[in-house]
């Protein structure tokens, strides 16, 4: 990905020094903007939102330290790294610069390489900080959603267990059977949420090990379908899977299983009673496409955008939240991207959805068809 040139605002009343600094930085590919005093700098910084500010300390009017203090108190500008340009070398002056929120200082007259080194260092630090803040936000959101989604099936589980515990002898066999069925479904929901959470956290902290192995697609899909027979039966949903020949791909088996399980589970969740889920795969144009199609409730156009975004899912939490929705898909997309595979879908409100997972064929295995 090509990143845009970084914007640097130079605030300096001395023209020679300003031109020199601009020239050095421009030659290194930065976009340079200039302010000649503190007042101008405050306006420019807010308008421009530069990636970094080089700020002279001694200027007519507001001093550099004052400018820095004001910028650090404004929400929009508080995170912009500010490096002071200073002729002052007294210990107290340097410390004051840090106290008002500066990240570094460069003593004038400065050396070109020192200037570039310090600017690049702080741009890199800012980038890392932004990334950490963003990851932290995503993590908080994820946990918040997980906590919410776990509570519902757990609530059902403990509530039913409580009735059975306290009133077992008063319950009929039919009631007990029904309760056990509900408890089974709820506990399965809890388990798959926890599995998703662990896999996601391993993938986030980088301990998810990708182990390529030969995956017999037909065999694995059949196994996954079997594990959902009971919940499909509860809604009288038919799962059709007619591929007669197996196909082998080389990829991570855990990820494959998790993705297929999430997609089948979603299909069942969002398909009405007596519905139909059709699963198929085929090989074409160097890819293996696995389709999981349902005739369920589908998605509104406005919701399609949100499906793979953690942030937007969070925003709609509690209003259109069908238990567990979205999390699995976000995880599927992330895990598939780690093994070079893709997920896409088409969907129509009240008609149904079709999710497609595309794996690249491995050259040594691509034509290997195993007769069952």
């Amino acid at each position, binding site marked *: 990905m090509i990143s845009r040139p970084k914007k640097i605002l130079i605030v300096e009343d001395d023209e020679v020094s300003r031109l020199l600094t601009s020239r050095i930085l421009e030659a290194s590919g930065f976009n340079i903007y200039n302010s000649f005093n503190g007042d101008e700098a405050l306006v420019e910084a807010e308008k421009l939102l530069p990636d970094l500010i080089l700020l002279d300390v001694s200027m007519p009017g507001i001093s550099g330290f004052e400018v820095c203090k004001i910028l650090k108190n404004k929400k929009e500008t508080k995170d912009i790294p500010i490096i002071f340009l200073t002729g002052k070398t007294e210990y107290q002056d340097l410390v004051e610069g840090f106290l008002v929120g500066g990240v570094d200082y460069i003593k004038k007259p400065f050396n070109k390489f020192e200037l570039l080194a310090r600017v690049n260092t702080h741009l890199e630090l800012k980038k890392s900080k932004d990334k950490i803040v963003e990851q932290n936000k995503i993590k908080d959101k994820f946990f918040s959603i997980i906590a919410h989604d776990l509570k*519902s099936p757990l609530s059902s589980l403990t509530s039913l267990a409580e*009735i059975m515990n306290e009133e077992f002898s008063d319950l009929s066999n039919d009631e007990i059977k029904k309760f056990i069925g509900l408890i089974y479904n709820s506990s399965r929901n809890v388990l798959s949420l926890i599995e998703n959470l662990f896999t996601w956290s391993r993938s986030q902290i980088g301990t998810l090990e990708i182990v390529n192995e030969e995956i017999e697609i037909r065999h694995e899909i059949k196994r996954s379908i079997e594990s959902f027979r009971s919940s499909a039966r509860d809604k009288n949903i038919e799962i059709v899977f007619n591929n007669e020949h197996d196909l082998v791909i080389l990829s991570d088996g855990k990820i494959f299983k998790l993705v297929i399980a999430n997609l089948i589970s979603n299909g069942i969740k969002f398909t009405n009673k007596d519905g139909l889920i059709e699963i198929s795969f085929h090989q074409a144009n160097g890819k293996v496409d696995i389709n999981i199609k349902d005739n369920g409730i589908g998605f509104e156009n406005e919701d399609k955008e949100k499906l793979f975004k953690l942030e937007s899912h969070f925003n709609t939490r509690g*209003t259109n939240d069908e238990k567990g929705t979205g999390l699995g898909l976000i995880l599927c997309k992330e895990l598939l991207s780690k093994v070079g595979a893709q997920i896409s879908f088409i969907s129509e409100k009240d008609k149904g959805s079709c999710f497609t997972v595309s794996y690249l064929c491995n050259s040594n295995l691509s034509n290997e068809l195993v007769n069952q």
Partner: protein
Amino acid sequence: MLKILIIDDDEGIRIYLNNIVKKGFAAETCQAENGLKGLGVMRHEKPDIILLDISMPVMDGLKTLFAIRSDKEFNKTPVIILTANSDKEDIAKLLAMGISDYILKPLVKESVLERIKKVLEKTNLISKVESN
């Protein structure tokens, strides 16, 4: 006899609430699995109090609450929200929409009964509870 409408998409939760309010208040109950069906049941059964889940398919609790509050006949009917979300801002919004109280999931019997009882006392519906 007190009549309570339970709206929750989770069958286990409906069974549970039905069980404890019947025992706790000798109440009559009616149920629905989503807000849309819940509104229909409400108009037909005319409950004294409504227990309303927030996260539901088809029509969620917020939209349902809005519809209840816009209905002349039921805009004073006490609504207690059932939610797994303990976010204070979200709860404040619900309280501002005129709910009587909220109960956090996972549900605890004593707390559910206590909260419903308080709302019944506040709204003078407690007289409908037959002692048993």
